[in-house]
């Protein structure tokens, strides 16, 4: 592997002593999400049931990484969220983890925003804060649009790297070298100048367990609550890009139109309508001696393009 150029400059600059290392100011965007493992859509009430709000796990990873960077380079961390009054819990959680300050963008006008408007409002406030690094989760647990990081980077005209699994900061040259997640565990190594936006993956690091002292200090800290007026934004000025039409029960994608055959029994017809005409997966059961069974498995793998005969395995 070619050593990145900034690594050399780092060793040179290292002679100047640690005092030269610039402090890193990090902004982390966090989100409150319903716990996806227990939330259910109830067709009787047409709404979500069993909603218990948690901090998005990927955001906890982002906060933990920011704290690690602060331990190494010094600096400060700002957690920011946009959400209804209950989203304050998430910021309190961040403060308990050791974040220096928390900003809560909360206004009745912010209800039912689309992703573009959310990113625009967050960017507007972040622009007022001093920052070197901006962290977002790559995709939230609930909606998983994966837009906000890109939206902030484009609005503030900053470099952006998505799906980050490792971050190395070279504070002397003001650059960052990150690993980006690709298919099958492969990584791309990307160099970016600072300031920049990074959307992080959960594998970046393990969430930290803060010491009791930090937790108690976090309980005392103040959450800076800002409404639209304080941010200096009028929601009506932001043109939304999407309008929500509602949520419903998850339905599989239609593979073909369900033509109802009158020769079927009512139960079978109901089944066909509910499944949306999706063809059932063809499941095959075989019971053969090991030699023949193995041959059958290999044939299955070849038929489905998982291995090919001529070439090496993928």
């Amino acid at each position, binding site marked *: 592997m070619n050593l990145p150029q900034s690594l050399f400059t780092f060793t040179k600059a290292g002679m100047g002593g640690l005092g030269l290392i610039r402090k890193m100011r990090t902004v982390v965007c966090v989100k409150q999400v319903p716990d996806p493992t227990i939330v259910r859509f109830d067709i009787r009430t047409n709404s979500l049931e069993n909603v218990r709000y948690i901090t998005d796990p990927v955001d906890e990873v982002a906060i933990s990484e920011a704290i690690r960077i602060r331990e190494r380079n010094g600096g400060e961390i700002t957690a920011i969220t946009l959400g209804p009054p209950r989203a304050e819990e998430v910021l309190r959680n961040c403060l308990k983890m050791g974040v220096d300050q928390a900003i809560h963008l909360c206004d009745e006008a912010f209800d039912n925003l689309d992703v573009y408007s959310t990113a625009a409002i967050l960017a507007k406030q972040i622009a007022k804060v001093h920052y070197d690094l901006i962290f977002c989760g790559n995709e939230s647990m609930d909606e998983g649009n994966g837009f906000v990081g890109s939206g902030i980077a484009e609005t503030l005209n900053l470099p952006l790297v998505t799906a980050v699994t490792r971050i190395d900061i070279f504070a002397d040259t003001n650059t960052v070298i990150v690993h980006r997640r690709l298919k099958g565990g492969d990584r791309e190594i990307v*160099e970016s100048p600072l300031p920049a936006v990074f959307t992080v993956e959960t594998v970046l690091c393990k969430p930290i367990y803060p010491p009791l002292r930090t937790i108690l200090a976090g309980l005392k800290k103040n959450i800076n609550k800002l409404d639209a007026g304080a941010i200096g934004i009028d929601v009506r000025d932001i043109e939304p890009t999407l309008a929500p039409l509602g949520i*419903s029960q998850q339905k599989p994608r239609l593979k073909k139109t369900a033509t109802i055959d009158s020769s079927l029994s009512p139960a079978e017809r109901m089944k066909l309508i509910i499944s949306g005409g999706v063809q059932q997966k063809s499941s095959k059961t075989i019971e053969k001696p090991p030699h023949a069974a193995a041959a059958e*498995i*290999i044939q299955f793998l070849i038929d489905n393009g998982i291995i090919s*005969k001529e070439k090496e395995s993928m």
Partner: protein
Amino acid sequence: MWENEQTITQETDALRSQQTDDGKGVWFFAEHKDGKVDEGCLKLAAEATNLADKLGQEAFAVIIGNQVKGLAEYFGPYGTDKALVVENQHLEMYNSEAYVNVLAQLVESDRPSIILLAATTIGNDLAPRLAARLKAAFVARYTEIEVDRDGNLTARRAIHSGNAQATVTPLRKPLIATIDTQLLSLQKAKGAKDTRIVEARIWIDPKTSRTSVIDYLKADPCAVCVSEAEIVIGVGKGLRSAENLNAVEELARVLGASIGGSRRATDERWIADERRIGLTGKTICPRLYLICGISGAFHHTLSIKGSQFMVSINIDRSAPIAKMADLMVVGDMHEVIPELTKQLREIIKPTT
């Protein structure tokens, strides 16, 4: 509450009518590697044709790279009318910022109504960024796009880990959407078309990208985390003892697979804790999941639904896993696996 909903619909209608119907064509972004396009890309071409037909518009392939004109012929059978080609030596490798700059310039001059991208590592990076740049509507991983009689679009997508579905309508054009190509079927168009190549002239400054790719790390498929692996072998109670893992490891080396397991396998210390698949462990979405000696309790099966193909080797014909597996082999894994390794060795070289 009701009033509120009504105003939203009214505003939506008002915004919709404001749009001038200047959408021309359904585009899809053609990902390519080593001068080839994969099956997912062809499925995307078919989906673009499908939507273009519903809208009464033309389907376009957008191909960006170096010497990529020849790729256009792949899309003819899938009904692609035209291929917009941007060739430049600085665009040979994917670079997020450079590609966004090119695409944004193309979209602003040609104004398509829909741009489709595959939800891959490239598509997931490119699509939201392009949408943010153009202030366009963005839908990630849609499951369906519907076109009504007036040509209005609505898109559906799964939210809350698939527990619910959201329906949205774009208020601005174009609609930029990504889709998991596994959901699509590979269907050829009714009439194959001669895809006409349109060379887009774009002024590109190669230095426009602030970020640069400096290296690439290839993962060892056997060591990689089960959640990222392309092929996963799962072991469970049927393994019986730690020594039996050797045979499985040998198979994993031949197949280039990562080994995971059920809670039983990690509790017995047969495999490491971080390789647990299930409710208390990792969620996997490989191309192949080879399930050895796992009966398929729901704690486990909840986390394996994303697998494209599942092959199960189990001694119990009535194990619940039989319902999920594409191929169920009734037999002893300790006999089948060595045999499978032996036969695989004859046809494929071990991955180094």
